[in-house]
């Protein structure tokens, strides 16, 4: 990716999987930290320490929301330190990966 060094900037990609019912709380926290962009995928299913979550189960619909967030390292640290103690309450997990952001006309990280 040598050729692309001008187009790509190093960033962190944070991926939350939380109980969909806690989504509003997570978003509020993120917005308060001046996060400028995120993507939400709802109605995800899964399995974890609290058992299975099936968004299509007839009598016990349980949904996860996947939130993807690309941001600079400094903001990423802030985000992780803030959300980390809340993870249990949100019923979920959080992964962090290195990534490159493709520079575009709009800055939303």
């Amino acid at each position, binding site marked *: 990716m040598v050729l692309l060094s001008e187009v790509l900037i190093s960033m962190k990609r944070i991926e939350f999987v939380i109980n969909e019912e806690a989504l509003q709380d997570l978003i509020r926290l993120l917005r308060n930290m001046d996060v400028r962009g995120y993507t939400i995928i709802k109605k995800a299913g899964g399995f974890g320490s*609290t*058992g299975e979550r099936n968004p*299509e*189960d*007839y*009598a*016990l*619909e*349980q949904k996860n929301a996947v939130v993807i967030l690309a941001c600079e390292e400094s903001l990423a640290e802030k985000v992780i330190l803030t959300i980390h103690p809340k993870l249990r309450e949100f019923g979920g997990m959080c992964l962090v990966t290195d990534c490159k952001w493709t520079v575009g006309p709009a800055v939303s990280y």
Partner: protein
Amino acid sequence: MSLSSLLVPAILFFALGMFACLIKSDLKFPPDMHKMIVIYLLIGIGLHGGKELAAANMGDALSAVYAAFAFGIILPIVAYIILRAIGKIDPLNAAAISAHYGSVSAGTYMTAVAFLAGIGVTYEAYPVIMLAIMESPAIMIGLVLAGYSRRVLGGESKDQKGMMKHLLIDAFTNGSILLLFGSMAIGWVISEPSYKKIEPFFELIFMGALCIFLCDMGMEAGKRISEFKSVGIFLVTFGIVMPLIGAAFGITVGHFMLGYSVGGITLVTVLAASCSYIAVPPAMRLAVPEANPSFYLTLSLGVTFPFNIVVGIPMYYAAAQYLHETYYPWW
């Protein structure tokens, strides 16, 4: 009662759904379709009930409310004792399962209504209030039983008060219950000509829509049957015996205490015999996360619901008829 009374279309569609599941058909109704029909059916039953109640006696309505609370409180305790004493089920699972049996299944109630309509039997307006009320008290008793179980187990005591408040609020703001109460209130206040305008949608096509609902429920029940093994023989038996115990309570109250007609007794019996799969499962998941959902869901949807639909309703009706012809109410 002849065999043809079993050939109510709604029940046949239930059987069709179970059959589809049995032969592993790829038949699948969109999940939203199910939600939509449930919304429609709840409003329909509420409106109809409300309109009837407008012409009914308040004192009698109050008796029905009392009876609903009594069922919601007594039945879970009976269930808990059986599960603990005979089945040796661990306390928290016992608490979660019990709560379901103090509550009701609107689907069973509507099938019973279709059954009575099919054989031309009339019924009182009060059971629909009981339907609306009974979902909630059992949830509270479930929480109380779980709290008691936790103390017995000596584990960390949860914030019982906070949870109770939370569940109480949930129970009163629960969408299905609200829809039922709300449309009951609307059916109550609107004038006859107003009702006539919406009757074709909410009454005329009701029985047909119920068929589609029950076909879907049949598939749902069919899916759960495969989990019988993981649930164990005791619990499966419990899922058939407990509705019979509930029915015994129901028929007694319906005939001797409330003094209803055969149709009304049948509906009260069905309410007491049925077992929730709408409001109680999510409440128990929240309040008793230690309990295994596949236990209460399999029992409720895979055992008790189909038992009531296929065997229970005609049986309760026959019993109600017998009782009605043989004994006088207590007053």
